[in-house]
C-alpha cells in the first residue's frame, strides 16, 4: 500500500515573500525522495504541503491523484506518517500510548492496538516489555526518535514524511537510525519524503535527491548523478563531504 505524491506548480508564500516557487515534481510509489537544501530553502514548506499542514498559494499537491485541498483534512493526515526533529511525543502518554494513539482514534479494539504497538516497537528495535510503559522523558534522544518513527507507522500510512528526524542526535546514534531507516524501507516499501540539510544522509537514504535553493528546485537526480553534478549548489554541498575526512 504505497501512494504517489505529485507537486503541480505548487508554491507557498507568506505575505508577499515567496517561500517556495512553483514546484513540479512527482514522487513515485515506494521511492524515497530526499529534499536537500540550506535552512530557508523551502524544503520543510514543501513537506508540510503534502499532509496539508500548509496549503499551496498556487498550484496543487496531489496525493494518490487527489489534491490535498480536496481531501478531508483528518483522513489525509491519518494516512500520512509524520516524523519531525523535535519528535513531539506526548509527554503525558507512555510510549505504548503514544504509538497506539492513531489506531485508537481510528477505532481499533484494545487487543489489536496492543498487538500493533508491540510489533512496531520490536520493528524499531525497542523491547515492548521494557519500553512500552515508560514516559518519553525516561528515554534517550535516539530511543525517542525510534518511538517517533513507530508512532508514524502505527496506522499503516501509505506515505511517510520525515523532517530532519535525526538532526538532533549524536553521530553514532544517527548512523544507527539511518541504517534502521534503510532496513525499514526494505521491509515496508513505503513512499517516503525526507527533508535534510546533511548531504551524506541524503545520498545514503535517497532513491532521488531534490536539491532546493531559495525556494526553487535546483537539481533532481539520483545519488550517483548528484555526485557527478557540476551544479554549483550541488558542488557546494559535495564539498562538505570532502572536508569530513582528515586532509593530510
Amino acid at each position: 500500500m504505497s501512494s504517489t505524491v505529485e507537486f503541480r506548480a505548487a508554491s507557498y508564500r507568506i505575505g508577499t515573500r515567496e517561500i517556495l516557487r512553483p514546484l513540479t515534481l512527482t514522487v513515485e510509489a515506494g521511492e524515497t525522495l530526499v529534499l536537500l537544501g540550506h535552512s530557508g530553502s523551502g524544503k520543510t514548506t514543501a513537506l508540510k504541503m503534502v499532509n496539508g499542514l500548509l496549503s499551496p498559494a498556487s498550484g496543487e499537491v496531489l496525493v494518490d491523484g487527489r489534491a490535498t485541498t480536496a481531501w478531508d483534512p483528518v483522513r489525509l493526515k491519518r494516512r500520512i506518517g509524520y516524523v519531525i526533529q523535535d519528535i513531539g511525543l506526548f509527554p503525558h502518554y507512555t510510549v505504548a500510548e503514544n504509538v497506539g494513539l492513531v489506531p485508537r482514534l481510528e477505532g481499533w479494539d484494545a487487543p489489536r492496538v496492543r498487538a500493533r504497538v508491540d510489533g512496531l516497537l520490536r520493528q524499531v528495535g525497542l523491547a515492548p516489555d521494557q519500553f512500552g510503559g515508560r514516559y518519553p522523558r525516561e528515554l534517550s534522544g535516539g530511543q525517542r526518535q525510534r518511538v517517533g518513527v513507530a508512532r508514524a507507522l502505527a496506522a499503516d500510512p501509505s506515505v511517510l514524511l520525515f523532517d530532519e528526524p535525526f538532526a538532533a542526535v549524536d553521530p553514532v546514534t544517527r548512523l544507527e537510525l539511518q541504517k534502521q531507516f534503510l532496513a525499514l524501507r526494505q521491509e515496508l516499501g513505503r513512499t517516503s519524503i525526507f527533508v535534510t540539510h546533511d548531504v551524506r544522509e541524503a545520498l545514503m537514504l535517497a532513491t532521488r535527491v531534490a536539491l532546493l535553493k531559495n525556494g526553487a528546485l535546483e537539481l533532481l537526480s539520483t545519488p550517483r548523478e548528484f555526485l557527478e553534478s557540476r551544479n554549483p549548489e550541488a558542488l557546494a554541498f559535495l564539498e562538505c563531504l570532502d572536508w569530513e575526512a582528515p586532509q593530510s
Partner: protein
Amino acid sequence: MNSSLVSEIGSLTVEHLTLVLVSMAIAIALAVPAGILITRRAGWRPWVLGFANVMQTIPSLALFGFLIPVPLIGGIGKRTAIVALVLYALLPILRNTLAGILGVDAAVRESAVAMGMTGWQTLWRVEMPLAARTILAGIRVATVTTIGTATIAAAIGGGGLGVFIFRGIASVDTVQILAGAVPAACMALAADGALGLLERRWSV
C-alpha cells in the same frame, strides 16, 4: 466565648463557604471556556483579558456598591455578592488557561494536528491535560482571593463571615472582628493547601 457566638461562627462559615463555592463554580465555568476560546481567536484576546483586568482593578467595596443599582443582577443580597465575586475571580483563571494552553510545546501541538487529531481531540487529549496544572494554579489563586473578598459581601447583605467583621468595626469589638477574620484566614489557608496538593499531583 459563649455558645451563641460559636454557633453563629459555624453558620456564617457555612454561608461564607457557600458564597465562595458557588462563585468559583460560575467563574470556572465562564473563564476556562473563555480562556480556551481566546487561544483560538487571538483578535479577541485584548478585549476579553481587558475586561477581566478592569474588573480586577475596581476596588472590591466599590464593585459591590456599583452592582446594587444594576437591574436583574443587582440589588441587596447574595446574588449581587456572587456576581461581584465571579467578576473578581475571572482574571487569574482566564490568564492561566491561556498561558497553559499556549505553553504546550509547539512540536507536540504540530504532531497532534499532523496525526489527524481533530480540534476537539487535540484540546481534550493533548492541550488540556498538559495545561491542567497551570489552569489549576489560576483556580487556586482565584479561590484564595475570593475567600478574602467574600468578607466584603456582608456590606451589601450577602452574609458570610464579613458580618462579624462589619459588626465588630461598627461596635469597636475586637472579638467580633476576630470571629470573622480567623475562620476566613483558616479557610483560605486550607483551600490553598488542598489545591496546592492537587496541583503537585497533576504534574506531567
